[in-house]
C-alpha cells in the first residue's frame, strides 16, 4: 500500500431520512438533507479549497477559502457552513472566487515562514497544497509586515512539537481537543492578529497543561505547527498499512505510516469503526518499545534459574523446551504441564497455544490472562443472556440517554471510547458512576455525573441489589420486556428477593457507605431516563463476587428493558486488546473455542476429528490452581506466551513460589519480564507490528492486525508456537495466520463466516458471523436472548473475607492510569513514562493526617499477603478509609500486597479489595531489596553472543 492521505470531505457525514439534489459546477448530486455544500461538492468529486474544515470536526467557517457562489444567494457564502438544499445551483470555480481565495491565501502567506523545503510537513501540508490550488504567485504585501515568525516553539511534549510561527489559527487543534477528545486543554488566547493557540494558561506549555497527548490536535493540524517529533527526525512516511492497536480493548484502527522498516507515526484511521478516527497517548505514540534496546531477539535457555541465561539458536531452544516438556510428561503425567494464552496476542496465536496444550501436551491445563480480568464477564453473561460477551457496539453510545458506569475508569483505561462517552454526555445524556474513587468521568470539564455512588470497595452487589430494590418496589420494572423476553419464574424469585426490606437502600446504606436517597435517585434515573446503558470494567469483575456483580448488572438491564437495541445494553470494557478474542478462542481450561464446554461430546468430536487426537472431557487447571499444584509438586512445566504473571497476578510471593517450584518454565515475550526471572527457556516474541492476525475488541469486533515490519526475532509468535508443537511431535504446517483463522472458522460456529479475505474487504466483523448473522451482529439479543429466555439470577450480597481491622484498617483498591498500560512492559519503555514515573499511593487527607503523612512521603503499604513501599499522594479523589495505587512498575509491585482472595465462580483475583495499613517509611521494603537482587541475578546473560 502506498502513502496517500485519507480523503477529507471537509465536514462530517450526516444521516437523514431525506435527501436533496443540487447542481454543483454542472454536476448533479444527491446528498442527505443537512449535508453541507462543501461535502456535497467533495462527494461529487470536486475539490473546494479549505483549511479550517475537516470532516472529523464540526464546520467552523473561519478560513474563508471555501467561498462559493450560489444562484439566488447574495455574496459568496462559505460552502462549509451552507447547507445543500433542493435545486440549489452552486458554482465553486469562478474568476471572482479565484480572486477572493487568492486574496485570502496572500494574507496567510504574508505571515508564514517560507521554509517549505526544509519543513517537516513538506509535501504533507494543507497550506502548501492550498496555496498551489488557488494559484498564489505573489504576496504583494511583502514579508516585512507584522508577523509571528519569531514565535518560539514548544517542544515540551515528548511526542510532538508545537511551532506557533507556522500556525494559521484555524482552531482545528482546539476544536479537536474539545469535540473529539473532550479535554478542552487548548484554547485560542488573545484575539485578532494576536490570536494564538495556547495549551492551558499563559505560563503553561503542552506538557504542563491539561493535555492528555491523545494526538487529536496533531492529526487535525493542517500545517507543521503540531507535528510528530518522529516525522521531524525520520522524515515523511513512504507507505502506510492499516492495522489494529495492541493496547486496550477498544481496538482502535491505525494507519501505521512507515519509512522503510521504521514506523514514522501511527495515525488513527477515520474508517476505524471502534475509534472513528480518534486515538490515545498509548496507541498513537507509545510504539517505541518495538525497537527498544531491551527487546530480546535471540532465544535463551538455562538449566536452573540461578544460572545466567545462555543465548542459543532457535533450534536448540525449541528442542530443549520440547525435550524438557516430554520428560516432565513422562515423569509426572500430562497434567503436570500447562500453558497460558496471552490476551495481548492475536486470535490465531491464542488458538494455537490452546491447541498445543490440548493436542500436544494432552491436557486441558490452559488458561488466559482473562482469568485475572474478565473471566466473571464470561461466566455471568453466559448464565444470564447465553453469550459470554458484551451486547452492543461502541456506536450504540450515541443513542444512550443514561449511562451507568460501574467499576470502570474509562478516561484512563479506555480513553478513546471515553471520549465518545463524554461527547454523548455533553449532548445531555445523564450519568451515574459507581466507583469508590472520583475518577475523571465523574467530573471533568463539561461533564458531571448526576450521581456518583462512592461505594465502599467490595459492596458492588449490595449497591446493585439496592438499585434493583428501588426499581422493583417503586414499580419501575419494564414489565412488557420482562414478560416477553425473560423467564417468569426466575424473575419472580429475583423480584421477591430484591424487594425484601433487607435490600432497601435504607437498610444497605451503612454497608455501602452511600446515602440511601442517592441510591434511590440513581435507580429512578436509570429506570426512567430513557435508553440506559451499563458500562463496566475490572472494578466489577476483580472481586470475590465478580461473577455475581456481572449477573446483577444483567438483572438490572433486563428488569429495565435495556437490552436488544441501540443505546442500551451491558457493555464490559475489556482491559487488554484481545481479552474477548482470547476467551473466544478456547483459552479457558473448561471451554473449547466458541464457549463450548469440554464435556460436550459433540464439540469435542469436532476438534478430535480436525486435530486427530482425543480431548480430555474434564476441565483443566486455572492459573491460580496451576500455581497451587506447583507448590504441591504436582505441576512442573508451563508455556507462558506474552503474559507476565509475576507482576500482574495477585499475591506475588505465592506466584513466585509456584514458578520456582516448576522444572521448566517457558516464557515467550518481548522483554525479559519479571516472570522470566523464574524461566528456563526464553523465546523472543514479536510485537503487533511484526505479525499478521486478528484481534477481537470489547464490542466483539474482529479486526485485522497487519504486519508492517519484519519480526526482529525472525518469527511471528504463532510460528514459534508451531515450532514448539512440531518439536513435541505435532504435524502442523500453517504457512500463514489466515490458515489458522480458517481452522477457527471451521471449528467455531460463531466464527463460521470469518476469514482474512472478508476482513480485508469489509474492515471488521462483529461475531457471531454465521448463517444466522451473515454480516455479524453489532447488537445482540435483538429478537430474543441467545439462551432463549433471559435468566434472572438471585445474587445475594456475600461480603468478602477481606475485612479491615485494627492491623489493616484501610482498604486498598488498584487500577491503572492513562499513560501506562498494565504491567508497563511496553509503556515504561516509551516516553509515556514521563507522565507516570512511579506508582504512588493515593490517600485521603484525613487518613494521611492521622498518620502524619505529607504529600510525597515514602510509605509502607502492608497487607496480610505482603508489603511494599511507595510514595503517598494526598487527594480527596479517594474516600477516607480507602487507598489506591496502580501496578505499572515492578519496583513497586503492588501485587505483593494483594491477596489470594478471588471470585467464587471463576477465581478471578480480588485485586480491588485488600485490607492494608499505611505507615511512614524511609525506604524500600526487605522484599523489594531481595527481589531487586534476585531480579538482577536472574537477568544475567552469558556473553556468548554479546552484542
Amino acid at each position, binding site marked *: 500500500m502506498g502513502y496517500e492521505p485519507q480523503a477529507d470531505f471537509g465536514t462530517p457525514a450526516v444521516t437523514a431520512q431525506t435527501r436533496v439534489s443540487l447542481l454543483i459546477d454542472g454536476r448533479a448530486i444527491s446528498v442527505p438533507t443537512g449535508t453541507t455544500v462543501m461535502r456535497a461538492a467533495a462527494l461529487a468529486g470536486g475539490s473546494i479549497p479549505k483549511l479550517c474544515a475537516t470532516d472529523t470536526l464540526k*464546520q*467552523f*467557517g*473561519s*478560513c*474563508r*477559502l471555501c*467561498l462559493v457562489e450560489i444562484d439566488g444567494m447574495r*455574496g*459568496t457564502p*462559505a460552502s*462549509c*457552513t*451552507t*447547507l445543500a438544499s433542493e435545486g440549489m445551483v452552486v458554482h465553486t470555480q469562478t474568476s471572482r472566487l479565484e*480572486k*477572493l481565495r487568492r*486574496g*485570502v491565501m496572500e*494574507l*496567510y502567506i*504574508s*505571515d508564514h515562514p*517560507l521554509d517549505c523545503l526544509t519543513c517537516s510537513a513538506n509535501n504533507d501540508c494543507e497550506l502548501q497544497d492550498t496555496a498551489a490550488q488557488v494559484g498564489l*504567485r*505573489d504576496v*504583494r*504585501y*511583502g*514579508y*516585512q*509586515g*507584522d508577523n509571528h515568525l519569531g514565535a518560539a516553539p514548544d517542544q515540551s511534549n515528548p511526542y510532538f512539537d508545537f511551532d506557533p510561527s507556522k500556525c*494559521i*489559527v484555524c*482552531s482545528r487543534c482546539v476544536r479537536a481537543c474539545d469535540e473529539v477528545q473532550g479535554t478542552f486543554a487548548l*484554547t*485560542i488566547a*488573545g*484575539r*485578532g*492578529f*494576536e*490570536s494564538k493557540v495556547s495549551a492551558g494558561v499563559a505560563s503553561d506549555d503542552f506538557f504542563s497543561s491539561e493535555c492528555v497527548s491523545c494526538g487529536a490536535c496533531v492529526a487535525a493540524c493542517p500545517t507543521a505547527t503540531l507535528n510528530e517529533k518522529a516525522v521531524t527526525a525520520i522524515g515523511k512516511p513512504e507507505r502506510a498499512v492499516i492495522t489494529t492497536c495492541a493496547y486496550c480493548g477498544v481496538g482502535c484502527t491505525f494507519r501505521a505510516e512507515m519509512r522503510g522498516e521504521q514506523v514514522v507515526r501511527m495515525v488513527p484511521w477515520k474508517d476505524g469503526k471502534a475509534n472513528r478516527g480518534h486515538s490515545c497517548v498509548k496507541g498513537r505514540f507509545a510504539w517505541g518499545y518495538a525497537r527498544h534496546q531491551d527487546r530480546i531477539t535471540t532465544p535463551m535457555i538455562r538449566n536452573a534459574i540461578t544460572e545466567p541465561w545462555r543465548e542459543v539458536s532457535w533450534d536448540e531452544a525449541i528442542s530443549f523446551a520440547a525435550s524438557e516438556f516430554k520428560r516432565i510428561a513422562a515423569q509426572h503425567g500430562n497434567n503436570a504441564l500447562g500453558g497460558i494464552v496471552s490476551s495481548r496476542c492475536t486470535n490465531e496465536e491464542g488458538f494455537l497455544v490452546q491447541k498445543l496444550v490440548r493436542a500436544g501436551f494432552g491436557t486441558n491445563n490452559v488458561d488466559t490472562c482473562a482469568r485475572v480480568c474478565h473471566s466473571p464477564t464470561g461466566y455471568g453473561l453466559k448464565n444470564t443472556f447465553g453469550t459470554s460477551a458484551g451486547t452492543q457496539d461502541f456506536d450504540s453510545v450515541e443513542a444512550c440517554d443514561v449511562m451507568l458506569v460501574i467499576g470502570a475508569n474509562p478516561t484512563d483505561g479506555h480513553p478513546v471510547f471515553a471520549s465518545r462517552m463524554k461527547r454523548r454526555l455533553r449532548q445531555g445524556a445523564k450519568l451515574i458512576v459507581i466507583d469508590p474513587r472520583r475518577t475523571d468521568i465523574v467530573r471533568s470539564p463539561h461533564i458531571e455525573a448526576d450521581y456518583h455512588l462512592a461505594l465502599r470497595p467490595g459492596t458492588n452487589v449490595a449497591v446493585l441489589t439496592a438499585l434493583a430494590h428501588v426499581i422493583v418496589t417503586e414499580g419501575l420494572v419494564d414489565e412488557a420486556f420482562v414478560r416477553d423476553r425473560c423467564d417468569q419464574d426466575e424473575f419472580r424469585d429475583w423480584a421477591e428477593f430484591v424487594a425484601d426490606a433487607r435490600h432497601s437502600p435504607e437498610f444497605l446504606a451503612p454497608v455501602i457507605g452511600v446515602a440511601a436517597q442517592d441510591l434511590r435517585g440513581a435507580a429512578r434515573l436509570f429506570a426512567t431516563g430513557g435508553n440506559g446503558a451499563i458500562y463496566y470494567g475490572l472494578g466489577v469483575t476483580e472481586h470475590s463476587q465478580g461473577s455475581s456483580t456481572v449477573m446483577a448488572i444483567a438483572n438490572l438491564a433486563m428488569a429495565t428493558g435495556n437490552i436488544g437495541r441501540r443505546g442500551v445494553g451491558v457493555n464490559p470494557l475489556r482491559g487488554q486488546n484481545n481479552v474477548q478474542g482470547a476467551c473466544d478462542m478456547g483459552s479457558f481450561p473448561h471451554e473449547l473455542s466458541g464457549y463450548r464446554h469440554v464435556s460436550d461430546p459433540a464439540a469435542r468430536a469436532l476438534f478430535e476429528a480436525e486435530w486427530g487426537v482425543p480431548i480430555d472431557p474434564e476441565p483443566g487447571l486455572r492459573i491460580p490452581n496451576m500455581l497451587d499444584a506447583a507448590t504441591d509438586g504436582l505441576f512442573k512445566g508451563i508455556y507462558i506466551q506474552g503474559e507476565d504473571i509475576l507482576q500482574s497476578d495477585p499475591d506475588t510471593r505465592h506466584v513466585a513460589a509456584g514458578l520456582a517450584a516448576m522444572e521448566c518454565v517457558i516464557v515467550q515475550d518481548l522483554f525479559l519480564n519479571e516472570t522470566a526471572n523464574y524461566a528456563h527457556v526464553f523465546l523472543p516474541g514479536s510485537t503487533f507490528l511484526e505479525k499478521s492476525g486478528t484481534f477481537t475488541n470489547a464490542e466483539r469486533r474482529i479486526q485485522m492486525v497487519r504486519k508492517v515490519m519484519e519480526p526482529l526475532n525472525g518469527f511471528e509468535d504463532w510460528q514459534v508456537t508451531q515450532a514448539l508443537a512440531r518439536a513435541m511431535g505435532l504435524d502442523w504446517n500453517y504457512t500463514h495466520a489466515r490458515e489458522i483463522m480458517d481452522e477457527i472458522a471451521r471449528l467455531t460456529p460463531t466464527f463460521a463466516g470469518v476469514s482474512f479475505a472478508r476482513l480485508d474487504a469489509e474492515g471488521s466483523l462483529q461475531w457471531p458471523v454465521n448463517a444466522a448473522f451473515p454480516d455479524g451482529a453489532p447488537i445482540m439479543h435483538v429478537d430474543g436472548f441467545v439462551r432463549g429466555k433471559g435468566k434472572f439470577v438471585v445474587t445475594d450480597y456475600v461480603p468478602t473475607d477481606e475485612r479491615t481491622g485494627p492491623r489493616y484498617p484501610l482498604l486498598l483498591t488498584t487500577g491503572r492510569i492513562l499513560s501506562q498500560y498494565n504491567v508497563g512492559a511496553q509503556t515504561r519503555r516509551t516516553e509515556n513514562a514521563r507522565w507516570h514515573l512511579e506508582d504512588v499511593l493515593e490517600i485521603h487527607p484525613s487518613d494521611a493526617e492521622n498518620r502524619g503523612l505529607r504529600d510525597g512521603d515514602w510509605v509502607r503499604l502492608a497487607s496480610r499477603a505482603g508489603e511494599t513501599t511507595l510514595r503517598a499522594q494526598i487527594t480527596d479523589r479517594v474516600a477516607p478509609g480507602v487507598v489506591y495505587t496502580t501496578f505499572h512498575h515492578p519496583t513497586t509491585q503492588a501485587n505483593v500486597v494483594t491477596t489470594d482472595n478471588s471470585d467464587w465462580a471463576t477465581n478471578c483475583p480480588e485485586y480491588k479489595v485488600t485490607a492494608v495499613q499505611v505507615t511512614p517509611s524511609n525506604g524500600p521494603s526487605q522484599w523489594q531489596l531481595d527481589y531487586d537482587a534476585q531480579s538482577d541475578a536472574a537477568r544475567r546473560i552469558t556473553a556468548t553472543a554479546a552484542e
Partner: protein
Amino acid sequence: MTRTVRISNDALALACGADHVAAAFAAAGCVVERVSSWGMHWLEPLAEIAGEGFGPLTADDVAAVLAGTSALGIGAIAAHPFIARQQRFTFARAGQTRPLSLDDYAAHGGWAGLDAARRIGPDGVIGEVTRSGLRGRGGAGFPAGIKWTTVAKAPAARKYVVCNADEGDSATFADRMVMEGDPFGLIEGMAIAAHAVGAQMGYIYVRSEYPHAIATLRGALDLAAPIIAPFRIEVRVGAGSYVCGEETALLNSLEGRRGEVRAKPPLPAIEGLFGQPTVVNNVLTLAAVPWIMAHGSAAYAAVGYGRSRGTMPIQLAGNVRYGGLFEAGFGMTLGELVMEIGGGTASGRPVHAVQVGGPLGAYHTPADFHLPFDYESFAAADGLIGHAGITVFDDSADMSAQARFAMQFCAVESCGKCTPCRIGSTRGVEVIDRIRARSGRGADPVESLPQMHNARKGGRSLAEDITLLEDLCETMKFGSLCALGGFTPYPVLSALRNFPQDFGLPAAAAAE
C-alpha cells in the same frame, strides 16, 4: 415659593456637570428632580423650570436663572424646533420622567403595550409586530416579526430573549439613552417579546463602558420584576469587545466564552443562547415594541419611507453644532439632518465628510446629502445607516487618517476567527501607512534574496499599493465572517474614493 427644577441624570448630562448644577439649585432651595434627557446635548446640562429650558448651565449660572436674568433660556422646551420637528415614539417620554419611577412610567403610558400584548396573546403580538414593519434597529434591518415567528415555532423547552445593548458604534447613544432614561420601556418590550415567543428568561447584554446604564437597568429590573413575572431578565456586562455587538459573538460572550463570531447557520432563532431558540434584538427594536402594541401596528407603519417603516432615533454627533438625539420617521435626507437639524459643524468650518453608521459606515461627502435616510437608499450608495449614528467632520479632517483608523479599529477589535479580518486588518493598516507616506513599497528583503527566483523583485508603486488596498477590501468585504471585517472596507474605500486628495491622489482617481 419652592420651585421644581428638572435636570437630567443621564451619563452625558453628568459628564457635562449636571450634578454640580443640580446641587446649586438644591442649595438655592429648589426641589430638584432628576429626569431623563431631552436629547439636546449641546444644551446639557439643561434645566427645566415649569416647561422652560435653560442651558447649557454651570453652577455659576444658577443664580441668574432663578433671578430670571439668565441669557441661557431657550423658552418652552417642547416648542424648541429640535424637539418640535421630531416624531417621538420610542423617546416619547424623554426628558419627562424620572427613569426609576414606576409612577412616572405608568403616568406616561407605560405598560399599556404589555397589557395589550397579554390581551391579544402571542400570535396576536407577532402579527402586530409583523404588520408594523418593524425592522431590527441594530444595523442589519431584519424584520423583527419574522425572527420572532421563527423562535415561536422552534420546539424547545427553554427559550431566551436577548437584548443587544452592546452599543459600540461611535456616534451612537440612543440605546444608552433608552437604558438610562426609560429603562422600563426596554423591559416592557422584552416582556412582550418573551410573551410572544414563549421565553422564560431574558438577558440584557450591556457594554461595560456604560456603567450608568447598567446601574439604572438593574434598579429598574428590581422594581419591574413583579410586573413582568414569570419572565425574568438579568443584566450581563460585556468586557470590552466591540465585536460582541455582533449577535453570535454576543451569545458566546453571554455563555461565558470568547466573543468569537459563530458561523450561521444555525441561526440564533433556532440555536441561540445555550443552543436554545433565542430572540436577539437591539435595544431600539425592543423599545419600539410597547408603542406598537399600545398604538397599533397601523399607526407605526403609517410612518416611514419605502420598506423602512416607523421612526428611527437618529444620533447627531461629532463636529456638529446641534448634537443629540433626533427621532423621526425614515426618509429625511442626510442634508436635512446634518445641515438643518444639526446646524452644520460646531467649528463653523465647512462640512468635509459625514460618516453614517459608525466605524463600519461609509464616509460621505456633501454630494450625498440628497440621500433619504433609509436602509435601502444607503445600501445602494455603498453605505449603510447601521444604528443611525451620524458623525460630522469639518475640513480639518484628513480622510486617509480616518481610513487608516477604520483598519486599525478593525485590527484592535477583530475577534480573530476569520482570516480576512484577522490578518487583513493589520495588513490594511500597513498598506494605508505606505499610501499615506506616498512611498509605495521598497524592495522587500525577502523577495530580494537570490533564492527567491519566482518572487517579483523590486518595489511596488503607489498605484500598485492602491490596487492592493482595493483588493484587500474586496477580500475582507466578501470573505469575512461577520460585519466587522465585512464592512470595514466601507469607510476605507469611501474615504479613498470620495477624498482621493487626502491620499495624495488626483481627484480623478476617485472614479474606478
